[in-house]
């Protein structure tokens, strides 16, 4: 509860008087504590000047007129601070309001992401997606069709924060409005590219990798739109290779076509999809190397997919001093033995 102004007045007079009598550090310490109280009670600078004048008028009834007048002068000078102080308060309130709005929006955005990952017996899937601030410019999506084929998308909106998040919600909507029947990755990106080209501001770019895993034949088909290459882990040779798909970023030109690639997936092999927040993880020594990332993944490869991505995230977060600079998303799909 705020103390009443008259209470503050009384208290000020008391501590000032004590100080004037004893002139010691304790008195000044009380003044410092009082200054916190003044702020807590939202007392503006010009009011502090008048507190002071009131107090010394009481102690020194025959204060020279000139000294008294000088306070009028000081009061005027303090008015600028008074106005700045009020602005600060109102900006703080506004910031709180904005923060609340962003929290609501961030919660809403979470609902855009798949609530659960579809499961098929032959696949072990792990996903982690963490925004750098409250809202994310990364997006991922899973679908399972009637043949148990798993479609997986990972997208990265260039830029971050609220604008990227707005753009991300558009991508979500565009993905949902694609034709019902399963599209091949290349065709899907072509469709999406047209939507983005028509609906998203020309200064917003979206990269995406889309893949489809067919568990009947264990083939992974994929296409990419300027997206950060993923990795393919080969169990037999115990090595990583780049999972690269050539293609223009979404939304640049209307009639982009996307080449489709495919891989035969053997037991124990896994596919790693990521957003550039993973590789652009910056430490004091610069960006981490992609090899470093594969080393981390390799270190945890004996664990279930979800635990691999969790652990890799933890390691990279730690490397950056627990401050993410970009939205971070990492997906692993492993063919079970």
């Amino acid at each position, binding site marked *: 509860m705020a103390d009443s102004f008259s209470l503050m007045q009384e208290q000020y007079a008391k501590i000032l008087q004590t100080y004037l009598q004893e002139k010691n550090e304790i008195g000044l310490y009380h003044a410092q504590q009082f200054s916190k109280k003044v702020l807590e009670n939202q007392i503006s600078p010009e009011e502090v000047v008048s507190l002071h004048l009131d107090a010394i008028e009481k102690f020194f009834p025959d204060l020279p007129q000139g000294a008294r007048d000088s306070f009028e002068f000081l009061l005027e000078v303090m*008015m600028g601070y008074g106005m700045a102080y009020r602005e600060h308060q109102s900006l703080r309130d506004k910031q709180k309001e904005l923060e609340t709005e962003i929290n609501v929006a961030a919660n809403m955005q979470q609902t855009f992401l798949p609530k659960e990952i579809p499961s098929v017996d032959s696949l072990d899937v792990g996903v982690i997606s963490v925004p750098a601030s409250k809202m994310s410019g990364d997006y991922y999506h899973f679908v399972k069709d009637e043949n148990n084929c798993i479609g997986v998308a990972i997208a990265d909106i260039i830029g971050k924060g609220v604008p990227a998040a707005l753009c991300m919600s558009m991508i979500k909507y565009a993905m949902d409005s694609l034709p019902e029947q399963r599209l091949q990755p290349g065709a899907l990106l072509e469709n999406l590219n047209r939507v983005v080209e028509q609906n998203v501001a020309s200064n917003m770019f979206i990269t995406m990798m889309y893949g489809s895993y067919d568990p009947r034949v264990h083939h992974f088909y994929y296409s990419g739109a300027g997206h950060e290459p993923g990795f393919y882990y080969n169990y037999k040779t115990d090595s990583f290779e780049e999972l690269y798909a050539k293609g223009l970023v979404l939304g640049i030109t209307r009639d982009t076509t996307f080449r489709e690639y495919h891989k035969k997936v053997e037991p124990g092999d896994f596919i790693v999809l990521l957003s550039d927040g993973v590789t652009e993880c910056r430490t004091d020594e610069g960006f981490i190397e992609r090899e470093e990332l594969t080393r981390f993944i390799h270190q945890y490869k004996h664990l279930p997919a979800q635990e691999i991505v969790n652990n890799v995230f933890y390691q990279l977060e730690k490397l950056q001093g627990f401050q993410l600079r970009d939205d971070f998303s990492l997906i692993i799909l492993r063919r079970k033995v």
Partner: protein
Amino acid sequence: MSVQSNVEVRTEWGIVSARQAGRNLAKEIGFSSVDQARITTAISELARNIYLYAEKGEIIIEAVEEIHSTGVKHGIKITAKDKGPGIKNIRQVMEDGFTTSGGLGAGLPGVKRLMDEFDIDSVAGEGTEITTIKWNS
């Protein structure tokens, strides 16, 4: 109690006269010296805007009262009137941080916060009228 003073503003002298008239009346009404400083600061800001943007106009200062069940509330009402260029985007100038001076909390939003009531009317090409009241508590 003086009923009303009209001060013409076309020079910095006008700004000072408006402040003076405001201070005199504020004293008469019984405002504390802190409130007096607030009222004159508000007058300064409004008068300077007239001087800078409308070239000339007037500041009207009057005592106002409101009768409540608990008694009579006294206040001071300041009206700044000009036939200058007007303000095109009022909403924008009422936002913090818009002032050209980059003024920390100064300008019209600052005046609004210093006073208890604030009302602005402005038509581009016709002029501006700002009314603001401070009540003596």
